[in-house]
């Protein structure tokens, strides 16, 4: 039973009819559970709302029954009396003094990064760089552009919705099966929420039907555990897809203002970026220590910019809490920067490829945020893309456009563990993380096959529960291949040392990893119909800077799937958040790309790079989805002479720019 209003005080919950309905085991509210808070970093999300509701879709009461249909029928009879309060529905508004308070004292939550002195609806604020120097350099620049770029809310769009099963043993041990990509973090998050030692919680292996950043939080697990405790039965919760779209943890909406300048030769002088994003009612779905989206703070990172400054603020609002999605903050930051760069190129009369040639980082140069990489192959990657580019023919009436965008993504690694056991002629590899579709288990299989010189078919990869292996950081953060490759190398080595007959367990720490980044340059080709504004994306060409590629097929799928996601963000996806609620609340309304929507994919691998670990790999999981929207927007500008600065790029937006007198 979920809140129907964005903000209010719970006055009464009438569950009499539900309690006696057929098949119902029990009905529980926040009063029964108590105020228990969970979160990935900030613990501010209640298991069930207590006394107040903060967003449309917030969990208010739970009906437990023998079947899903009995539970749903009974839940529909629960009446929640809420005294509505004025909500804060927009980030800008929420940060003004006197706006409705989403939380009374947000600085008191465990993990909070705000203080009492901050605006009362601030979730996080990150500042980097030297703003004074930036202002001075911008003032002295020959050309400056100053634009605001905007982003609708979207959703990770995994085909399998959020789902969880929990049981509690008589001795209190908790068992959880959940579509979640980081079992050890889940265990720690549950332990913190339920105030129990992590060793008394076991997360069991499951395959995950797509994650894309949306399945890293405890979500419904704490509730299922509490319900299992109170009913003495295993409890299962599977979200209906409309619930997932509107009340799980979709993407932040927001805007970024970019001011960027260059000299007479098109060399960048300074960058000022000001990002304001909507984090929804709870900050607990963001995992990094700053409680921000790290892509925002990396804006402009692929280039040589003498002075840069960024401020990224995320606000609490009375809307669905937002979470991570594949390279969080990066598609937005790159859209804003690359679009501004193209607009700057236009002002300066320089070709978009040329302005990039002049400003892309070269090996040994520090990026605007002070990071220097082992190598910076942006130029080679750009040239490879341009060489491979081939314009497509169009039917009459359509205007052709080409757009370029660049992104670089550092390769991380992480802490993980692995066990090898001999098994007949082959081996079993016990791994601590689930397969979410990215091919993590394949990396293990292929790596072991190579290290042990056996057929891949003789390697069985099996995810085990958290009780069986010490640790894993979880899927995500572009760290899986690097971390697993290291674990595979060490485990194989230890296994061989033991005569290949004894089980070995290894725990790998990241250790000293070289600072490695991978570039992706995309060139989008579009056809625009100026009479309707319709944009057909014909092709996305992705040039990808690679080192060693463990499994070429899986690698290629990450690139193509990433580009598809980038295309969806660019042209289709909008949850249509109005008046605090999601209006596109099913996959008929929230459209993700289908077979006939997607452009053609071309992939060019720019080989010869140097990666991390024994194999020398570079990440690819959060790469090709990032520059796509920027490339498409620039292609549209090239085709039609108009610049769309808010996503998604729709025919109507293009039309309105072209025919400003026609649309009322």
């Amino acid at each position, binding site marked *: 039973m979920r809140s129907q209003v964005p903000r209010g005080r719970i006055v009464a919950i009438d569950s009499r009819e539900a309690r006696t309905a057929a098949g119902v085991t029990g009905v529980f509210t926040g009063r029964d559970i108590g105020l228990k808070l969970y979160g990935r970093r900030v613990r501010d999300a209640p298991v069930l709302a207590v006394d107040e509701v903060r967003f449309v879709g917030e969990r208010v009461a739970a009906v437990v029954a023998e079947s899903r249909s009995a539970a*749903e029928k009974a839940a529909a009879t629960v009446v929640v009396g809420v005294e509505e309060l004025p909500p804060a529905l927009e980030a800008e508004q929420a940060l003004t003094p006197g706006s409705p308070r989403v939380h009374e004292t947000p600085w008191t939550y465990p993990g909070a990064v705000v203080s009492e002195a901050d605006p009362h609806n601030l979730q996080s604020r990150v500042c980097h760089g030297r703003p004074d120097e930036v202002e001075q350099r911008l003032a002295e620049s020959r050309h400056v552009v100053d634009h605001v770029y905007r982003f609708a809310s979207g959703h990770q769009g995994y085909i399998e919705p959020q789902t969880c099963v929990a049981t509690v043993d008589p001795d209190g041990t908790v068992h959880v099966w959940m579509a979640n990509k980081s079992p050890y973090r889940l265990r720690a998050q549950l332990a913190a929420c339920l105030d129990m030692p992590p060793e008394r919680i076991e997360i069991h292996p499951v395959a995950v039907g797509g994650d894309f950043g949306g399945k890293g939080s405890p979500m419904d697990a704490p509730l299922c555990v509490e319900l299992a405790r109170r009913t003495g039965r295993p409890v299962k919760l599977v979200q209906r897809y409309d619930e997932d779209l509107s009340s799980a943890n979709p993407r932040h909406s927001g805007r970024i203002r970019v001011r960027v300048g260059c000299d007479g030769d098109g060399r960048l002088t300074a960058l000022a970026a000001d990002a304001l994003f909507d984090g929804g009612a709870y900050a607990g779905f963001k995992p990094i220590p700053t409680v921000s989206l790290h892509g925002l703070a990396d804006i402009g990172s692929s280039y040589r910019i003498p002075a840069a400054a960024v401020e990224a603020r995320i606000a609490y609002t009375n809307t669905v809490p937002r979470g991570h999605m594949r390279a969080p903050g990066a598609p937005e930051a790159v859209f804003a920067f690359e679009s501004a760069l193209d607009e700057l190129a236009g002002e300066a009369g320089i070709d978009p490829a040329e302005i990039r040639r002049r400003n892309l980082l070269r090996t040994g140069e520090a990026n605007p945020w002070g990071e220097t990489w082992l190598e910076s192959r942006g130029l080679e990657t750009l040239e490879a893309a341009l060489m491979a580019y081939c314009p497509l023919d169009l039917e009459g009436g359509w205007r052709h456009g080409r757009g370029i965008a660049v992104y670089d993504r550092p390769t991380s690694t992480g802490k993980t563990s692995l066990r090898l056991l001999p098994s007949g002629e082959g081996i079993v590899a016990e791994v601590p993380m689930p397969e979410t579709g990215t091919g993590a288990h394949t990396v293990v299989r292929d790596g072991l096959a190579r290290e042990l010189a056996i057929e891949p078919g003789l390697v069985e990869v099996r995810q085990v529960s958290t009780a069986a292996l010490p640790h894993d950081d979880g899927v995500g953060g572009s760290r899986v291949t690097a971390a697993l490759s290291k674990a595979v190398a060490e485990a194989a080595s230890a296994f061989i040392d033991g005569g290949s007959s004894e089980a070995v367990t290894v725990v790998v720490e990241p250790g000293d990893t070289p600072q490695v980044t991978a570039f992706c340059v995309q060139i989008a080709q579009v056809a625009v119909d100026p009479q*309707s504004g319709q944009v057909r994306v014909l092709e996305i060409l992705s040039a990808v800077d690679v080192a060693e590629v463990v499994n070429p097929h899986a690698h290629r799928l990450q690139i193509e799937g990433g580009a598809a996601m980038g295309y969806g963000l660019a042209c289709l996806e909008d949850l249509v958040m109005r008046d605090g609620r999601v209006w596109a609340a099913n996959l008929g309304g929230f459209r993700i790309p289908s077979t006939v929507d997607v452009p053609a994919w071309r992939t060019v691998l720019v080989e010869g790079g140097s990666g991390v670990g024994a194999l020398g790999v570079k990440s690819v999981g959060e790469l090709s989805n990032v520059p796509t929207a920027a490339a498409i927007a620039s292609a549209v500008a090239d085709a039609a002479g108009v610049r769309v600065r808010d996503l998604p790029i*729709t025919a*109507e937006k293009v039309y309105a720019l072209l025919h400003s007198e026609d649309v009322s």
Partner: protein
Amino acid sequence: MDPEFAVPASLDEAVRCLEHEGAVAVGGGTQVGLLLRQGLIEPSRLVWLGRVAGLREIRSDVDGSLLIGSGATLSEIAGSPVVRSAHPMVARAAAHVGNPRVRAVGTLGGHLVHADPRQDLPPCLLVLAAEVRLLGRKGTRDVPLRDFYRGPFETAVQDGELLIRVKIPASPEPTRCCYLRFTPGTSNDYPTVGVAALAEFDAGATRRAAVGLGGVAPRPLLVDLPQLAGRPLDATALAAAGQAAATACDPVSDQRGSAGYKRAMVRLWTERALRACRPLDG
């Protein structure tokens, strides 16, 4: 409350089954299944028409008109050589409804009585002056499609009545038709604007022209274009047609576009659809 599931074997039996209070007719079931799943309807009885004899027939009548039984699936209509030959626009429009799973079982009757103003077939059938036959306990009655749609999801079908067939009169030669569906987002979706254009010619001049519009009014709209009669279908005529269609429509702003944009698209796509109807040598 769990509904009964009735499986009549004849039209008479079907009508009797529908006399029950709270009875709902089911063709392919895609609409009813969806509404049931979402808890939006609570029928006392589901009357499945899948076994009713003769309801799926597609044939030409003696006077040259095309008769399509309401039980024919959209897939059958799209692939029918009879439909493709007599009214290819109808076959092509049917091929675009929903997705292959919808078309495999979704019936013409179910499609028409659902009456979503954005659907593909109603505009096509409107310009072709189609007529539906309804059967109830009082017998049959024929309703021209132009009188069939009352409002969003609202038709002339009364309680206890079934839509049993659609009749499309033969078009005088030469007649050219074209249906264009504008889907700027995902193609596998309702169109933002759908335009079915029809032009009958006589010695190079237009004798009769009309457009059917989907998605831009509370119901599918038929816009007759008398101002085109007696003239060649040239640029001026096309512009006049676009203007007339834009004036006649009454779109609302929604996720697919603002009212102003939809109106502009009605003008554009009316011109394009009629242009595609021009005689090849004209």
